[in-house]
Structures are given as structure tokens and as C-alpha cells.
């Protein structure tokens, strides 16, 4: 487990360098990636489906990214991108491709569909947290407005 935490931290931070994120945010990128991967691995070890695990992990990543984005006044994409990179189903896509090459189309299509589902789940996780965030902001805004009217 510790190996997973350390490697996911380094991998996410390294992706921050590849995407040229601001130097100050590299460590935070690593942290976001580590948190996401921890949840993913935890859920997969508890025998949840990879799609569900990706969804939850992506949701948590988006929540942390939003908090960071607000704290440091930077675009959210910096954190969320480095965070989701470990979740991307590269291994599955590779397996699918390998089966395509040896004309094993049945297995290949299955794997490709799974990879597509996982990337969809990641996106849905991000979107859900975004929608929730907007909802919260609206409620807060309304409360403020009411308070102002009372005053």
C-alpha cells in the first residue's frame, strides 16, 4: 500500500511537470493524485467494480481540486488533470489493442468497452462534483442575499 501511495504521488507530480503546471502547485498535484489512487485501490481491494471505484475516486479528486483551486485562486484544471491521470485505463486500452492484433475480437471489444466505461465514469465523477459545487454556491448566495435583505 505504501508503495502505491508513494508511486502515485511521484507519478502525478511528474505529470504536473509534463503539463507545465506552476512550480508551486506540483506537490499539491501529487497529493491530489495520491488521494485519488488511494481511494481507487482501496475500493478495488474491497472488490468493488473498477468503474464504480473510478467514479468515486474521480469525485473525490474533483472535490479536493475545487478546494485547492479556491484556496490558491488557480484554475481547477491544474489539480484535476494531474489527479485523474493515474485512473486513466491505459492498461485496459493496451490489453484491448493486443487482443485486436491477434484477431481475438470478442475479448478485445469487451476490454475496449470496459475502458470506455471507466473513462466515462471518471468524467461523470468530475461533472457530479462540479454540479454539486454550483448548487452549494447558489444556496450560499441565496442565504447571503436573504441576510442582506433582513439587514
Amino acid at each position, binding site marked *: 500500500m505504501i508503495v502505491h501511495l508513494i508511486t502515485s504521488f*511521484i*507519478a502525478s507530480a511528474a505529470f504536473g511537470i509534463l*503539463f507545465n503546471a*506552476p512550480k508551486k502547485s506540483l506537490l499539491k498535484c501529487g497529493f491530489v493524485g495520491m488521494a485519488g489512487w488511494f481511494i481507487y485501490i482501496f475500493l478495488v481491494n474491497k472488490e468493488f467494480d473498477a468503474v464504480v471505484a473510478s467514479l468515486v475516486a474521480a469525485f473525490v479528486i474533483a472535490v479536493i481540486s475545487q478546494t485547492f483551486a479556491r484556496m490558491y485562486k*488557480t484554475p481547477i484544471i491544474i489539480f484535476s488533470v494531474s489527479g485523474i491521470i493515474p485512473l486513466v485505463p491505459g*492498461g485496459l486500452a493496451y490489453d484491448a489493442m493486443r487482443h485486436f*492484433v491477434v484477431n481475438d475480437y470478442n475479448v478485445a471489444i469487451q476490454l475496449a468497452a470496459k475502458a470506455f466505461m471507466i*473513462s466515462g465514469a471518471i468524467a461523470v465523477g468530475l*461533472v457530479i462534483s462540479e454540479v454539486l459545487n454550483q448548487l452549494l454556491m447558489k444556496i450560499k448566495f441565496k442565504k447571503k442575499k436573504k441576510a442582506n435583505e433582513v439587514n
Partner: protein
Amino acid sequence: MENRFPQTYEVIELCLLAGKIMLQCGGETYRVEDTMTRIAATFGIPQSHSYVTPTGIIFSIDGTEPAKFIRISERTTDLYKVTLVNGVSRKLSSGELTAEQALNRLKEIQDADFTFPIYQQIIAASISSGCFLMMFLGQWSDFIPAVIAGGLGFVCFVYIHQILKVRFFSEFVASLVIGLIAFLFVKIGVGTQLDKIIIGSVMPLVPGLLITNAVRDLMAGHLVSGLSKGADAFLTACAIGTGIAVVVAFY
């Protein structure tokens, strides 16, 4: 304060430049549209319309001004510039910058090169390859082969891309090189699991960002940019897959 409400065409120029930099550096579609509308609103133009696709921006301001169009041909990922442009737009709306200052600042950002030195990028790519190997339950004995294969693959990608400017081809060659190196390592007995080494080293090239952004754009209603980003991601995945497939087919 005579600069508070500059000429309309200056505002258009400002909005387009901000949008162009953001889009070229990998900003999300909605962020680009949002930034441009917000800048226009700062200068008293609440009714502006922007239509952003990955290859071009159409921007129009209500009234008699004609709509403007900008073509985006080269796209990279440079999140630092996105952050900087975001900062400029923030300062514009809070009134800390005038239109002229903002335009100069944006031009500086456009011409500057903030990317990490190439050797640092290569080191980052190699180390992340090794880390991905471990995350995909590889063995420690395969760590060094994955680092070397990932690093060399990334070097190939960067240099071939500089010469040819055809992304599809440079990705194809890079993944071919990765496959060959991984195969060689396994053949001479340094590496053990060919699959894991290849998956780990290919990760720096995988279009994970594009796939996820594509689905997200689609859900947010940016249908055109979602589909074209999806096509982009699909092409990249195909290029990588083909490169690896060539090696696997002979294996």
C-alpha cells in the same frame, strides 16, 4: 480613467487574445468562453457571444461590429499560461488593470516560454513510467527497464514532433520504440513482464486528459468540441496502439 471604457475593437482584441492563449495551452472549452464573456462584461458589454471549438474561436459583440474569428492550429498543454491568463482576467474584473495594461500583459504571456527545461520533462516522463509500472502491480525488477523505455519513448516523441509536426506519426514512432526496447529488455533477461513494462512506459503518451475532457465537454453541452476532442484522443490512442501492435505482432 479615460481608459475605463475603451473602443469596442480593443475589447474584442483583448478577449480574442486571452481566449487564444487559453485554448492553445489546453484550457477547457467552458473556461475559455467564460473568460471571454467576463472580460467583455467588465468593459460594459454584457451581451457577447463566443463559440469555441478546439480549432477556432468565433467571437461577436452585440451591435454593428462584425464577428471575429481566430484559427488555432497548434495545441499544447501548458497549464502555467492558463493560470496566468486567468489571473489577468481576474485583475481586469476587479479593476486593477486597464485594458491597455492587460493587452500588453497578455502579449508578454503569449511570447514567453515557461515550459520546464526539456531534460526535466524527460526525467519526469521516465520516473512516472517507473511509478506507473509499480501502480499496475509490476515487479521492482522491471522498474529500471520501464524507466529507460519510457524516457527514450518520450525523447523520440519530442524530437520527432519538432521535425515533423505530425502528432500521429511521432506518437506512433515513440510507442514503437517503447515496444522494441521493452521487448529487448525481456529478451536479454533484464525485464520479466513485457506487458507491464509497456503499459507503464506508454502512460506519458496516453491521451487520458483528452478522453476525459471530451466526455466532460459533451456532458456540458459543448457538442462540437467534445466530439472533436474525442476524435483527437481516438487518433492518438490508435497511433500508440499501432506502434505497440507492430511489436506484439512479431513477438
